[in-house]
């Protein structure tokens, strides 16, 4: 015979204001099977929990119902208290009389009646609860990090330094990401490559990091602790074991006019190339779309140019290399795929994103973006650090920076703030004034958002000490007149229109997630927002977890991030991963689906509706090993306990532990409907 205890919480005034908690306790005490029913101001407080523990012992309770907040809040608290009182924790349930009742109603009498009804349903459910025990699944204690920018590098190093193996996958020929392209970094103006390249080398030399550069994640199977990841190692056309990185091949390549991705199109590279001198790994890659040999092969013509192969003393060039696939077992995945910059052109990858016709759709020469300016200002850049405009190589004496290009512009499809632009524009004006002493930098901005340690001081310094002229207002139109760029703006603080000539314009364009983020997110079953940024599990309390257990997120693929943010997030993911790897076995909630093997007909409706890929095929064999039947099996490691299979099964052969048909039915019956 059930002996249920009911504990009604006032939650201060949250519940007590609208619900007569004492009356709820009184009425629930009259429900058959309830032997103890009390109310208390704060049930989640320590004295409240002690009441639960004490009642279990004194009244010999077989089940506990706490009428309080959502189970998302305090279910764990009360299940622990129940366990502390000597009962199986899964014999404790929450009746949600706050979010589902007191917060949404005003009529106290009616809300009290509803609170009693809600509590009664849970009492009936708990009468049918059975003790459950947590599921233990093994953990593969190796991690996969996707993306070799600063976030991925930091995450990989932290996990590897914590003693676990890391697989680092980078789609480009070298790790380093956007940070390797930057000249100097705010707010300290330290050289970006000087602080980044040591970490890149550390990754390469680390005994516990396996680097797959020029590789992409092909598919992901499995679940937390037990992922199986297939990685495509794109054909580099180089035998990595033979190449010694001497660079003879790149010097001899005749196709030297290819816009360099690393220099944002401002410099040139060859078809066989190393993206930049400090590249890790220091291995050349043949760009098959631009290589004469491969262009001829695509047209069915015989191979002509083999100069790189002739120049190679190690016979490392392999024109017949094909994409290879490797499969790695990992227990956790960190997504750190970073960002790309929005471009203002007419053609956009997504229909909701628009270009800037009023700024010439990107056709005006000498209008560049922030990353291009970084390459111009960088000592390793195409101009060796001289500020020269692309069209004629002249030094611009009047340079204008426009902030919020795409960002905070819902009409162009991006309503968010890209966060880093205010700071890097201030930095750009400083770099410019340091290099062009007789030049004038002007900035058109809407707001200066410089929230960070030393950030506001930095942007003020650009204005007060370094002479950048800041004008508050968006520019309406920009066009070319001879070799100057005409700018039509408005100074909203002075209240007057401004027309201005510029020699060069730098656009602080919006940060967007990398192309292909949606297909990667789908492979990983993680959600993303309308812009493609990966969603965190909770914006405050679980900022680096995703909604898929075992998959974590770091850096600018989650939202616009600067370097300190990205590094902090990366270290946070490493801490999460190392925490997960602390034990050989992983404990999971036992509320998972189970298949009744005797009645399952093997129709696999459940497999088709399962959003998590948890349903597998299981063969029932006789002693001779002949397959008699093929039925469904729910992998408890993957199952998230959503119950869709249970609702779908035509023969009622699937039951979700803790939410059986009988339990749900008894809840409905308790309402008397």
């Amino acid at each position: 015979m059930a002996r249920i205890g009911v504990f009604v919480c006032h939650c201060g005034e949250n519940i007590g204001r609208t619900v007569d908690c004492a009356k709820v306790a009184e009425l629930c005490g009259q429900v058959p099977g309830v032997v103890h029913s009390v109310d208390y101001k704060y049930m989640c407080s320590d004295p409240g929990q002690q009441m639960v523990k004490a009642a279990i012992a004194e009244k010999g309770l077989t089940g506990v119902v706490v009428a309080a907040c959502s189970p998302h809040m305090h279910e764990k608290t009360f299940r622990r208290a129940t366990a502390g009182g000597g009962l199986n924790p899964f014999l404790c349930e929450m009746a949600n009389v706050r979010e589902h009742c007191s917060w949404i109603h005003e009529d106290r009498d009616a809300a009290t009646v509803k609170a009693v009804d809600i509590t009664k349903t849970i009492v009936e459910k708990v009468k049918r609860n059975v003790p459950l025990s947590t599921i233990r699944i093994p953990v593969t204690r190796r991690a996969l990090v996707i993306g070799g920018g600063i976030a991925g590098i930091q995450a990989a190093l932290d996990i590897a330094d914590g003693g676990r193996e890391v697989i680092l996958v980078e789609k480009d020929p070298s790790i380093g990401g956007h940070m390797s392209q930057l000249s100097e970094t705010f707010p300290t103006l330290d050289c970006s490559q000087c602080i980044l390249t040591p970490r890149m080398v550390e990754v390469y030399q680390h005994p516990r990091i396996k680097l797959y550069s020029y590789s992409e994640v092909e598919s992901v199977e499995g679940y937390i602790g037990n992922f199986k990841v297939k990685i495509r190692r794109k054909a580099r056309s180089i035998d990595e074991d033979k190449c010694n990185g001497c660079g003879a091949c790149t010097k001899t390549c005749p196709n030297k006019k290819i816009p360099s991705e690393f220099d944002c199109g401002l410099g040139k590279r060859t078809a066989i190339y190393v993206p930049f001198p400090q590249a890790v790994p220091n291995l050349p890659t043949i760009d098959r779309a631009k290589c004469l040999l491969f262009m001829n092969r695509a047209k069915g013509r015989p191979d002509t140019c083999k100069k790189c192969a002739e120049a190679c003393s190690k016979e490392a060039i392999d024109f017949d290399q094909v994409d290879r696939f490797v499969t790695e077992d990992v227990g956790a995945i960190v997504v750190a795929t970073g960002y790309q910059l929005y471009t203002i052109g007419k053609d956009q990858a997504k229909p909701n994103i628009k270009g800037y016709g009023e700024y010439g759709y990107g056709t005006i020469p000498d209008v560049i973006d922030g990353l291009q300016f970084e390459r111009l200002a960088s000592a390793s850049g195409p101009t060796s650090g001289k500020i020269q405009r692309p069209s004629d190589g002249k030094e611009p004496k009047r340079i204008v920076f426009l902030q919020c290009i795409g960002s905070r512009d819902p009409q162009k499809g991006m309503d968010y703030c890209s966060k880093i632009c205010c700071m890097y524009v201030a930095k750009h004006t400083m770099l410019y004034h340091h290099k062009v002493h007789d030049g004038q930098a002007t900035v058109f901005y809407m707001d200066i958002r410089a929230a960070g340690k030393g950030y506001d001081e930095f942007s003020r310094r650009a204005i007060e000490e370094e002479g950048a002229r800041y004008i508050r207002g968006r520019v309406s139109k920009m066009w070319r007149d001879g070799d100057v760029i005409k700018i039509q703006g408005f100074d909203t603080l002075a209240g007057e229109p401004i027309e201005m000539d510029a020699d060069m314009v730098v656009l602080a364009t919006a940060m967007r997630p990398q192309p292909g983020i949606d297909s990667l997110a789908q492979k990983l079953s993680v959600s993303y927002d309308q812009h493609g940024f990966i969603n965190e599990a909770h914006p405050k309390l679980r900022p680096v977890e995703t909604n898929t257990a075992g998959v974590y997120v770091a850096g600018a693929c989650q939202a616009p991030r600067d370097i300190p943010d990205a590094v902090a997030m990366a270290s946070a993911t490493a801490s999460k991963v190392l925490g997960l790897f602390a034990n050989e076995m992983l404990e999971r909630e036992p509320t998972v689906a189970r298949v009744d093997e005797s009645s399952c007909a093997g129709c696999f409706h459940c497999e088709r509706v399962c959003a998590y890929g948890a349903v597998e095929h299981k063969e029932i064999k006789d002693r001779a090993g002949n397959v008699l039947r093929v039925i469904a099996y729910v992998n408890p490691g993957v199952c998230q306990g959503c119950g869709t299979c249970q609702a779908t099964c035509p023969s009622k052969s699937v039951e979700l532990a803790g939410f059986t048909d009988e339990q749900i039915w008894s809840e409905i019956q308790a309402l008397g409907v």
Partner: protein
Amino acid sequence: MGSHEHSHEHSAAQPLATRIQHMTGLNPLKCYQCGKCSAGCPMATETTTRPHDVMRLVARDQLDRLTDADGLWLCLTCETCTSRCPNGCDPARTMDALREILAARTNGKNHNAIRAFHRSFLTQVRNHGRLFEMGLIMSYKLGGGPMFADVTTTPSVLARGKLGLAPHNVKGLEEIRRIFEACAAQEDGA
């Protein structure tokens, strides 16, 4: 709201931004004062009440100051402000709605000449289905416009046949009239 601010009209208890939103379906409070509208406004040098000033005064519920300002009446309705606005605030439509509200007001500076011109223009369209220039000139000058301005240009304009003496009505004047009636009914209802 600070004590130095003008109080908004007693007859309209709702904040101006709410009234505008009812009329246009757009929320004027979306404006974040970037000034891109005014940067492109061809009349920005002619008035001190540019599109972004109008949006700001709406947000601050300053109908009296809008009544006094000439910007609303100098607006050419070229709608550059609207096409540039990053936030979809539609300053042009907002100013349309304000002109509708202000047309009924008699207090403050009236900008009689500009309003007389607007009224005369619409009277011509109502009567003839199109603009009858001579009629416009007459009714504008008699209705409060400057009596003798531009008079000296009349002979040369007449000589070049740019100013017809008799109106040419469009077909379907009845439909035009019904449009005016429907608009008037809508205004009464609103």
